[in-house]
């Protein structure tokens, strides 16, 4: 690349960094004060770009119409954020952190379908900015004027935010509440009002970040999750809660990405390497590298456990005799079902069993081990691909099924080594990053994995294809694996994991190598997720990169959280209800996401302890009354 081309790439990178920074700053602010990882932040960005598109159309593309439309879009999204905070999140501040996550994810689903309903499925490209529609000559090349405006926007917003946070009483209160919100409350600071205003400001920034993009990129319905993963990366690389960190990280990632596109294909020592293909993962690679060397991000600091939010996990009880009987009865019922049910129900049941194992393996690291993974689908998907690839390379199906879980296990062993060095939100983000890397490799390696088309013709051996044989195989393997995982929770290894979760320091002090135990736990969960993935591949006969994409990981989280994280059986209940609901609703309506999101919200608000947790509580209350 020539020097002038490099300079243009640098400017391109800076231009795209600005919007990324606006959105990331909003997410970082909201996390800092409320400790909520707002999954719906990408949706706010998406609402910003769609709203700006409509407003500019209504106001007309003139100077006032365009800029007024862009600014109003930000304000509209900010108001929407305030309403969401007051009506929904406010009820959840005392609920476990992960439940808030679930609620914001339900919002993602609802907002997506809302946008589909209002604006339709087509991509919408906004008008050019009046007065900035042209190009200027820089270093002998044409460069869009609008991008110059964007380059300036980022630092201006950074400066304004800095002034707001350090020079106003509101900013001082926000910083105080970020550090110790309970103490701020005891000094007379009304947190409810502070939280609403912070959420509104964060949403405004996200909306504005979207709105300023209308001349540059079309509004697309899938942009909510795309920008979300970008923004997560920026916030984590910069350090959660650090606004200057978010700016630095946005610039770093924007510029590196632009250079990857600019370099394109190069031939090194006879090997062709495509840098533009790298753009899908480069930010995740940057994040992984940064987190390994600076676990709290570039400008972040170690997060203490937020005061006043320290919820101690209650101990897990040994299953009662009644529980055992119920389990045996459920298994017997599942074994007898094929005698009476139709083909369709069996397919659905197979799905439920597979996802139950997937969810239980995720619960194993989230519940007893306290490691929140946002990227568990990677191990599910790699297990599935291992099975498919082994079969394609002439390995008998039975052997492929037996070896495939190792695909998930080996990946979990490798990724886990990095992940267990972190905790909390950072760990969750790193798992997400690894899942995205795994996805992108599978997605792009056409020659080996079939790329975006995936692999087809992955059917079980003939003796398993007939009648109900595969259903029984799934039932036996999943039930055995789930029981084994549950059993492990009550072994010394399981106790060590729980000790490490409750107090890493004390566990270390009594001689438990917490990291090592967590690493093993992570790998073990990977093996079982891999088994679920392999069974999934054989039951469908084909796989695509979707098997290990982010939405699948989120499905797993929803299942575990719906079931209730403090219960062992919860993950199974959650998987069953979620898979069944999804199946029923997708057959009924085009807007299945909104319906599913609505149901999740209702569940979260009605049963903050999860379905199984709710049933257990009722059960205990009744048992208590009977005894009294």
């Amino acid at each position: 690349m020539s020097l002038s081309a490099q300079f243009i790439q640098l400017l391109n990178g800076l231009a795209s960094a600005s919007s990324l920074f606006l959105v990331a700053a909003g997410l970082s602010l909201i996390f800092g004060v409320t400790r909520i990882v707002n999954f719906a932040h990408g949706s706010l960005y998406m609402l910003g770009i769609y709203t700006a598109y409509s407003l500019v159309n209504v106001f007309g593309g003139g100077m006032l119409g365009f800029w007024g439309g862009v600014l109003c879009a930000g304000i509209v999204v900010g108001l929407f954020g305030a309403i969401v905070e007051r009506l929904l999140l406010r009820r959840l501040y005392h609920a476990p952190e992960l439940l808030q996550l679930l609620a914001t994810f339900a919002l993602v689903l609802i907002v997506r379908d809302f946008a589909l309903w209002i604006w339709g499925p087509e991509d919408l490209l906004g008008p050019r900015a009046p007065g900035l529609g042209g190009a200027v000559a820089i270093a002998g090349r044409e460069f869009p004027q609008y991008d110059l405006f964007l380059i300036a926007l980022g630092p201006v917003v950074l400066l304004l935010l800095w002034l707001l946070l350090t020079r106003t009483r509101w900013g001082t209160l926000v910083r105080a509440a970020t550090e110790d919100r309970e103490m701020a409350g005891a000094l007379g600071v009304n947190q409810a009002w502070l939280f609403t205003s912070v959420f509104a400001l964060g949403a405004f920034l996200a909306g504005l970040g979207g709105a300023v993009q209308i001349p540059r990129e079309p509004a697309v319905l899938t942009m909510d999750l795309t920008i979300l993963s970008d923004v997560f990366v920026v916030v984590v690389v910069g350090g959660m809660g650090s606004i200057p960190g978010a700016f630095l990280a946005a610039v770093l990632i924007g510029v590196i990405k632009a250079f990857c596109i600019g370099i394109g294909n190069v031939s090194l020592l006879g090997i062709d390497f495509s840098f533009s293909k790298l753009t899908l993962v480069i930010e995740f690679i940057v994040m992984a590298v940064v987190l390994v060397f600076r676990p709290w991000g570039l400008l972040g600091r170690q997060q203490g456990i937020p005061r006043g939010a320290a919820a101690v996990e209650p101990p897990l009880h040994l299953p009662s005799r009644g529980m055992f009987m119920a389990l045996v009865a459920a298994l017997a019922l599942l074994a007898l079902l094929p005698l009476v049910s139709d083909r369709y129900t069996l397919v659905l049941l197979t799905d439920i069993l597979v996802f139950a194992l997937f969810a239980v393996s995720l619960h194993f690291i989230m519940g007893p081990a306290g490691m929140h993974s946002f990227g568990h689908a990677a191990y599910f998907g790699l297990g599935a691909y291992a099975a498919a690839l082994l079969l394609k390379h002439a390995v008998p199906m039975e052997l492929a099924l037996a070896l495939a879980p190792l695909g998930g296990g080996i990946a979990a062993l490798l990724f886990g080594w990095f992940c267990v060095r972190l905790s909390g939100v950072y760990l969750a983000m790193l798992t997400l990053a690894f899942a995205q890397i795994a996805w992108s490799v599978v997605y792009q390696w056409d020659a080996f994995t079939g790329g975006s088309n995936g692999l087809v013709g992955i059917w079980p051996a003939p003796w398993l294809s007939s009648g109900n044989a595969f259903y029984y195989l799934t039932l036996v393997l999943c039930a055995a694996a789930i029981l084994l995982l549950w059993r492990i929770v009550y072994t010394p290894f399981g106790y060590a994991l729980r000790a490490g979760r409750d107090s890493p320091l004390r566990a270390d002090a009594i001689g438990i190598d917490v990291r090592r135990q967590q690493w093993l736990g992570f790998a073990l969960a990977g093996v079982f997720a891999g088994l679920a993935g392999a069974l999934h591949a054989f039951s469908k006969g084909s796989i695509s990169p979707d098997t290990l994409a982010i939405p699948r990981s989120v499905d797993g989280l929803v299942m575990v959280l719906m079931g209730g994280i403090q219960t062992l059986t919860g993950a199974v209940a959650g998987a069953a209800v979620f898979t069944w609901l999804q199946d029923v609703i997708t057959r009924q309506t085009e807007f299945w996401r909104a319906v599913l999101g609505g149901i999740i919200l209702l569940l979260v608000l009605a049963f903050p302890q999860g379905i199984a947790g709710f049933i257990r509580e009722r059960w205990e209350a009744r048992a208590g009354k009977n005894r009294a």
Partner: protein
Amino acid sequence: MLEMKGVNSAYGRAHILYDLSLSANRGEVVVLLGRNGAGKSTTLKTLIGLVPPLSGEISFDGRRIERLEPYQIARLGLGYVPEERRIFTDLSVMENLEVGKQAPRADAPRWTPEKLFRLFPNLAGMRERPGAHMSGGEQQMLTIARTLMGNPRAILLDEPSEGLAPVIVEQMAKTILELKQEGLCVLLSEQNLHFANLVADRAYIIEKGHIRYEGSMAALAANEQIRATYLSI
């Protein structure tokens, strides 16, 4: 002015306070004595609303407050100084004071940063210093100054002498007596009997969440047996 009647409090399933009743009046310094884990901190946290009581009545200046949020109680003029010096370490001294600021009250002394710097001369020289770069004693003074910025009518102090050098403890005692002079109602928890003797008018002894003794500080000082039973280690 401040009164608890039959209050029960718990953290989750752990019941901490049992039918606790106590009171403190304007211009009076009342000390809550007891060993570690007796329930002293929980009593103060219950008063300020950080631990909502399961049952019982709490009133402040004739108003029932047991169902209010901490910020609402603080805005009625009840100040709370936590143990373990929870200052905002990212914020400077002046900013810490800003967080505690409330509108002046007609019936309570009015505090400004300048007036507080006269009470705590050490803080005057470090207005822009971040809380993280202060010594333990300076941090303890800042927590008290920060609460006073709310112009409270009554103040709860959780173990103010804990972990302080003797010289600072003397200074702390002097400060508390000055607050009493200003007409404040002061309720403090303590393990340090010597310190309590310096400042308190009346004392309660709490053990395992029950009030075991109530009387004037002078009477307690004279009662060897009570001290031996509930306070000696």
